């Protein structure tokens, strides 16, 4: 029962992520404020790590990153594999060591994932000779302000899946 639940849970996590990606593609990329649109993928990559096993979450983050690398044009090959695997690992640490799994844990993990995404982009650009930290910080900040308010929607759907297919 527990094994079957876990399998269903991961399938539904995947479907939920797909749904939000479709929402991102169809609507969010066209909703611009301050020249920026909300960017959900880092949040989707870390959300399962709030409740799930750290190793499983890391694998899921890497697989989700690979899918993003193949469908979104990354700045370097495997960019999202690295970012999302690292973000999922960090989220796993947050939920197991620092903050009790729940909304605040999800919010903190999302914040960390978005910051990590911005930091990796800034790093890639600076390696390529585009060394503009102020612009990078500005984009990251605006992205945070626009994306974090959407965390509750992602959290609620993932929590519903978690409750519908419990671990025990």
């Amino acid at each position, binding site marked *: 029962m527990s094994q079957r639940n876990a399998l269903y849970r991961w399938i539904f996590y995947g479907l939920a992520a797909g749904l939000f990606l479709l929402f*991102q593609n169809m609507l969010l990329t066209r909703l611009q404020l301050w020249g*920026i649109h909300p960017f959900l993928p880092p949040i989707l990559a870390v959300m399962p790590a709030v409740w799930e096993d750290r190793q499983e979450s890391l694998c899921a983050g890497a697989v989700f990153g690979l899918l993003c690398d193949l469908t979104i*044009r990354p700045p370097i090959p495997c960019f999202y594999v690295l970012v999302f695997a690292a973000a999922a690992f960090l989220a796993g640490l947050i939920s197991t060591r620092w903050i009790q799994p729940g909304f605040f844990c999800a919010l903190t993990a999302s914040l960390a994932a978005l910051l990590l995404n911005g930091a990796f982009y800034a790093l890639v650009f600076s390696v390529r000779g*585009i060394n503009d930290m102020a612009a990078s910080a500005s984009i990251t900040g605006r992205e945070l302000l626009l994306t974090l308010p959407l965390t509750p929607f992602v959290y609620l759907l993932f929590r519903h899946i978690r409750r519908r297919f419990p671990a025990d």
Partner: protein
Amino acid sequence: MKRFFTKNGILLLTAVTIVAVALCIASAVSSGTGFLYNAAGVIASPFRSLGATVSGWVQSVGDHFQSIEALQQENEELRRENARLQADIRQAETDSAENKKLRNILELRKQRRDFALESAHITQQSFSNWSSALTLSKGTASGIAIGNCVVDEYGYLVGIVTDAGLNWSTVTTIVDPESKLGAAVFRTKEPAIVTGELRLLSAGKLRLSYIQGELINGDLIVTSGLGGYYPSDLVIGTVEDVLADDSGMGQYAILSPMTDLDSLSEVFVITAFEVVE
């Protein structure tokens, strides 16, 4: 499931890492679009088209509610512009006849610009806030190749094809931080370089560097065509502001692109060109 991951988690992670590294190497070695990236693009293509159709429908519903006053004002502006353009055409006809006569006297070849154009729909706007790219509904099967220029319906430059799969292609727009083009000031024909910048990306502006002559606000900037990679005289944008660079010795300009990247739904890829000056 947990047991499976505990037993095989490291194995899975290793497999994913190997695939990731293989992708990195494959991408670094090949100059074109990698096989996996191409295949993923082909699979994702119908979903992108579906997304574009739905969001286009939502946008068209929103457009219905545009205020009448705004449309009247736009109509008035268009009437004024039309009158100005009519005057320009009359002048151009006189100039053209004079030009033809002078070319005949000097026995110069007739100027010619032949473009092979392939129309394509935009199926995906920029997904990331750190770059500016468009995904098109056509690819190598329609003759589109990496390096092709992309223009809008008015002939204004949109960007360059940087990835091309079987039935999809990616256009890096002119405002992308990594975009770089040889340009010329239309009025003076002086060469310069147009680049995208990270700090100008959100505002959708460009930077014009290595300026040699005097620039004035409103100057039209076009592609230089030097080197023969891109056609010449494709309109990039207009000079919005001329500023002193960090050293204080030189100057650079902020350009406003002529094309409206946010409202594009269809573009034209220049798959082949011949320009005789």
